[in-house]
């Protein structure tokens, strides 16, 4: 039975207008939104996504002339050449750059004639003097390489943490502090991110870390983003395409108020409303007067309207701050995740105070030294156990019959993590001794001291 029969009004498996999606070709990804008649440029090709709407996610499309997408027929995966003729080794193959008879112009002509990728590759094979001398494996490799270059397909994927993390790491690692996707995976698990918990996040990774946490919470519980500066950066969160109600669980709190909150000095109650109103009105008048000198009667009306708007916005902002403060005040958060360009030490030492005992925390840093500092401070202060400084080593493999081996290039590094668990702070004993968290440790034979 054809799966296409089951179309419901809001089908999460089908591409809809306005959806946030990820385009994929090979290992290249790009996050875009489906907007009618909008020209998208991806991998040196331009096209419109209008035709994608209504199709299932993970459909691969061919880009035909005019930038129109056509769903690819499923049969098009066979090798173009039926010729089994192949050589045994390359002892007689001379690489003089002259084996391909078609010129660049010839190939352009073929493209203009509307030949599909598969057909162009067939032409290239037929016009190559050395193709049939290559070994079967070399032929395979040649075809794969040409496919990558000439096939003009694009796959439309539903966004997920996995896809977006790989995309950011491949495209714009600087924006995410060079956080590699497997390191992000470790963070989400070590911090025990799950539905119905209360998680604190401090990140400057374009919202990727925040979005990943929200995905793992599924719209349950709450996430409080602590942010430096004027406002929280969340561009990456949009790309996840979360349903609207997920944003109800997301709160933000500016770090400039953290000390006040910890001291109990933060006042988030509503101030005198009329004073607010007057202030807003005066502010609007001073600003607007400069622009609208010619209509003094409209001026008054306009200023009054703007002042009301501003008052409403300020009140909303105050309410949000109060809500976030209420969530934090109890100092009973369930998890803490830090991943930023800021020095992690002060961030960690301050935000840890909001965590309940027996809860995990994870700190990411591009640099090991900053985490060594954190580790040392935590050992001195006490109140944490199971501290671990780690990183992960990641390697991909090519798996083909008789050609299985690790891939030639591998990631040099993916950043470092410091993870641990909070415990009840010991009120009776001062936390001065270096070993206060480790009961009766074994003597070490080496001169080195741990921690």
């Amino acid at each position, binding site marked *: 039975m054809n799966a296409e029969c089951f179309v419901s009004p809001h089908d999460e498996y089908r591409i809809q207008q306005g959806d946030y999606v990820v385009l994929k070709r090979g290992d290249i990804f790009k996050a875009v939104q489906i907007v009618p008649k909008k020209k998208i440029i991806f991998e040196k090709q331009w096209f419109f996504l209008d035709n994608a709407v209504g199709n*299932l996610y993970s459909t691969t499309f061919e880009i035909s002339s005019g930038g129109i997408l056509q769903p690819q027929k499923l049969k098009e995966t066979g090798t173009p050449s039926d010729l089994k003729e192949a050589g045994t080794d390359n002892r007689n193959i001379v690489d003089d750059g002259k084996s391909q008879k078609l010129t660049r112009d010839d190939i352009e002509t073929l493209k203009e004639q509307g030949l599909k990728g598969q057909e162009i590759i067939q032409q290239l094979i037929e016009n190559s003097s050395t193709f049939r001398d290559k070994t079967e494996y070399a032929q395979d490799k040649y075809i794969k390489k040409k496919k990558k270059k000439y096939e003009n397909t694009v796959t439309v994927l539903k966004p997920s943490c996995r896809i977006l993390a790989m995309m950011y790491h491949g495209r714009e690692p600087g924006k995410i502090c060079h956080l590699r996707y497997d390191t992000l995976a470790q963070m989400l698990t070590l911090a025990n991110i799950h539905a119905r918990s209360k998680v604190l996040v401090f990140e400057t990774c374009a919202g990727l870390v925040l979005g990943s946490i929200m995905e793992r919470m599924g719209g349950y519980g709450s996430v409080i983003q602590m942010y430096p500066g004027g406002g929280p950066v969340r561009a990456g969160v949009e790309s996840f395409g979360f349903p609207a109600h997920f944003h109800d669980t997301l709160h933000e709190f500016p770090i400039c108020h953290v000390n006040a909150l910890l001291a109990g000095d933060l006042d988030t109650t509503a101030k005198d409303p009329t004073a607010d109103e007057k202030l807003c009105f005066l502010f609007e008048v001073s600003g607007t007067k400069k622009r609208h000198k010619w209509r003094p009667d409209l001026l008054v009306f306009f200023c009054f309207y703007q002042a009301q708007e501003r008052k409403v916005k300020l009140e909303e902002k105050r309410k949000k701050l109060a809500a976030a403060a209420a969530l934090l005040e109890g100092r009973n958060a369930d998890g803490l995740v830090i991943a930023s360009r800021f020095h992690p030490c002060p961030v960690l030492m301050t935000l840890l105070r909001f965590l309940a005992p027996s809860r*995990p925390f994870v700190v990411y840093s591009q640099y090991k030294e900053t985490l060594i500092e954190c580790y040392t401070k935590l050992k001195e202060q006490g109140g944490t156990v199971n501290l671990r400084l780690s990183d992960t080593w990641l390697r991909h493999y090519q798996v083909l019959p008789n050609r299985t081996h690790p891939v030639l290039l591998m990631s040099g590094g993916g950043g470092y993590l410091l993870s641990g668990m909070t415990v009840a702070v010991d009120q009776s004993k001062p936390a001065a001794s270096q070993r206060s968290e480790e009961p*009766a440790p074994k003597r070490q034979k080496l001169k080195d001291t741990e921690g």
Partner: protein
Amino acid sequence: MSFVEYSDCIQDGDVAIVYLGHNSVMPVKVQQGAQTQTRYGVIRHSSDLIGQPYGSKVTCSKGGWVYVLHPTPELWTVALPHRTQILYTTDIATITMMLELKPGSVVCESGTGSGSLSHAILRTIAPTGHLHTVEFHQQRAEKVQEEFTEHRVDHLVTVRNQDVCKDGFGVTGVADAVFLDIPSPWEAVGHAKAAMKRQAGGRLCSFSPCIEQVQRTCQALVDQGFQEINTLEVLLRIHDVRTVSLPLPDFGPDSRSDGVEETSPNHAAVSLKTTTPPREMPGHTGYLTFATKPRT
């Protein structure tokens, strides 16, 4: 307490994790009137545990002390009694992300083994997802079912005692993700495909220690039309934070210096805060092969 939701205080019937020191944890079934022996002495459940907040320090009879922690799948992985070789957190974390698991996901897994990965999956898919796990060894299947019940996650999981290669997962067309950790995964690829939802995008993962197994599995995946087939391995490197003292050599009095000596006999060493790698580390656990199911 449950493995999928936090609570604040230890209660009768909970499973708690006792932290004894670096890399040393043990699970404890909390029971009114019971006692637990540790190397630091006895823990009396009624007085020391029940009613205390998780994270508390508990002083044992011999005077030494421990911490009592709320269970998490990560602590369970390190504390659980092994019935088989288990998956550790590094692989589990990678699998969780690459399979795109989240609340509401429906997952099929085989073999269940000691339940290390199972607990992590349950934590991630709660409260609305479901795990269908298949284990062909009868006693292991029974033991893991007992643990799921004790850990208050049994409403999220169905354990089936059967051979996945012959009989599949017991469900069809429902799974968002399938995980295989069995000797001959290529024999289960067809069943995995059948268990998965018909729409495209379902994720599959196969874990195998041997490269030959990986090769056969990849071939089966290609034959069954899977896409985005990708094999990788991930290894954890731990860095031991240490203060190291390096002695400075004495080359004798320096005639070039203007009398201000930096290296008097009293300062014959430099202290350095650094990390050292462990002497040995796990160099291999298994190869992880991922793939995406196309529409069927």
